[in-house]
């Protein structure tokens, strides 16, 4: 099962490698991991997407909690939540493809953020499946490069992952 785990941790150097090291040392799956400081600069928030049996996911959460730098964590998959991922995609947009590329970007509510005579860079957010769909929708030969952040997640409703 796919799980999205939000982790609040001390904003210390090395904290990220403790998490990454834990996953590799214990053979856990890591699909994506995003991290950045929060509004409180002493804290970082990480969103980890992982897969495993219920027993493995339970161990992952326990082992994460055991890390001294981890303040709190929440398995977002246990309740309603929102996931968003940012993608920047560079397309080879010569004259014959410019209109098509622009239309597709509009349909997917993407923004064209860089333009040259022969290329577009499109910025797009959404859940991961939407970004996958956009990649499938554009002409494969037109894609120069794709960069994705991996999903960030937050729970729905009033309660939050705070200290």
């Amino acid at each position, binding site marked *: 099962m796919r799980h999205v785990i939000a982790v609040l941790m001390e904003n210390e150097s*090395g904290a990220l*490698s403790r998490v990454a090291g834990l996953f590799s040392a214990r053979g856990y799956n890591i699909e994506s991991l995003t991290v950045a400081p929060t509004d409180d600069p002493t804290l970082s928030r990480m969103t980890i997407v992982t897969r495993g049996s219920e027993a493995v996911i339970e161990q992952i959460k326990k082992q994460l909690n055991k890390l001294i730098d981890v*303040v709190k964590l929440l398995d977002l998959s246990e309740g309603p939540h929102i996931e968003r991922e940012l993608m920047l995609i560079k397309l080879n947009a010569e004259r014959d493809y410019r209109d098509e590329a622009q239309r597709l970007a509009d349909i997917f509510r993407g923004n064209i953020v860089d333009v040259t005579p022969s290329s577009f860079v499109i910025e797009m957010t959404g859940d991961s499946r939407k970004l996958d769909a956009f990649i499938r929708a554009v002409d494969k030969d037109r894609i120069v490069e794709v960069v994705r952040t991996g999903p960030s997640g937050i729970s729905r409703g009033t309660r939050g992952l705070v200290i």
Partner: protein
Amino acid sequence: MELSGGEIVIRALRDEGVEYVFGYPGGAVLHIYDALFQQDEVRHILVRHEQAAAHAADGYARSTGKPGVVLVTSGPGATNAVTGIATAYMDSIPMVVLTGQVPRAVIGSDAFQEVDTVGITRPCVKHNFLVKSLDELALTLKKAFYIATSGRPGPVVVDIPKDVTDPNVKIPYEYPEKIEIRSYHPVEKGHHGQIRQAIKLMQQAERPIIYSGGGVVLGEASEELTELTRLSGFPITNTLMGLGSYPATDRQFLGMLGMHGTYEANMAMHKADVLVAIGARFDDRVTGKIEQFCPNAKIIHVDIDPASISKTIRPDIPIVGPVKQVLGDMIETWKENARELEPKPLDKWWEQIEAWRAMHCLKYETNSEKIKPQECVETLYRVTGGELFLTSDVGQHQMWAAQYYKFTQPRRWINSGGLGTMGFGLPAAMGVQLAHPDAEVACITGEASIQMCIQEMATCMQYGLPIKVVLMNNGYMGMVRQWQEFFYESRYSHSYVDALPDFVKMAESYGHIGMRVENPADLEAAMKEAFGRKDRFVFLDVVVDPAENVYPMIEAGKPHNQMHLSPYLSSERELA
């Protein structure tokens, strides 16, 4: 009071009540060593290799319950200590390791004796720190001691760049009495509802067994464990790490369980209907085949570490909490409940256990012309009256010591259980002897293990440590040889050490007493003589039967009821 970084390190150790630091100097820690030189409250023990510093601190910690402290330099000083740190980590031993680091300005430049100590040690420590400024030094040391000793204990590394300890830079010294870490809250109390359920299950059991481990030793809960066992009348088995937490001389004790456990302990595990696991982590050497582990039992698991619960075996009733408190609560609850509802009688179960016990699975040939290793351990037990602090290396001798030496007190059996580190025994004995200067301390070892840290005989000489080394010399890496005999058709690939030193002369060259015994008839007298030399380090080289194997044995990945028993048992039965 204004202190330099080097002085702060030593002062903080003093404020933590540290008696001994085990270490080895080098460039990056010279400022700290200079501060150490200028005081006499914290004593430094100079080892001959940094691995031994960590093992000695470990032995000190295991025998006292107090954290062991290590001080080594950067680069090779730190990497040499890693084996000792990992050893402590696997057995949850409280330890604080101070490593020197190159000056902050050159970190990352591949400077002389630079390694990424925090990176290298990360997977084998409970936590580690790189001290980035003098201001955070004292607080970091406080955190290190707190983390190492609380909750499930473990080693903590504090990496200190040389310029942080500069004697010319001084700041006011303040060492907090207590500390709060917002991201670290060890569990303080087990859930009472879970405990009530556990007791209810235990009192309905017809074939119960208690399986307890090193957590009981670490959690200072031997008294409570003994009381609950006596109160319930349950049979009890200990893991390798738990030996001594319940008196091995008691009738309810079935011996060690697992790969080299007794027949009665393993059979009782296999047939049990309720298993009470206390401070034990279902190690693979204990469980054997997971799918067939205690196939008929409801399982109660008491552990301070939530991550230990359901890691390999999913319990029916998990209880997360400190063993001492949980066991205390369990005893009270048992007594309360027992007034209303009589617990089930266990006569039939004990009858069955006694039948298994009558197998005498640890019997061995006693009329041999060669000294049997089992006999060596039994003689050691007789001569020392069971009062010994016994450290061990790793291999056959370790298993025989665990099987035949009857420990009746916790913290007396000191061995590397989780990591299985050869070379652990002698340096660990140094830490034990320093912590207990008047006690008898011995290291049981093999000729392969002892050579991995044999240089520490010099340390023993320097500090006058009257340790007794009992070397069971069979010329082979015995456990490797045993596996090769069983599973590789006796192809003894590189398990024979072809050029052994003369251990008697070697001991003598370090200034100690060396003795060699080859004849079974001389064994007891030699051991008495060795232990009679109260003030001297004696190295006793006992030549034992090289063909002897450790029995019973469960092959890796097999269930508890599939044991190899000693061929001696069947030959004896045929004769009868």
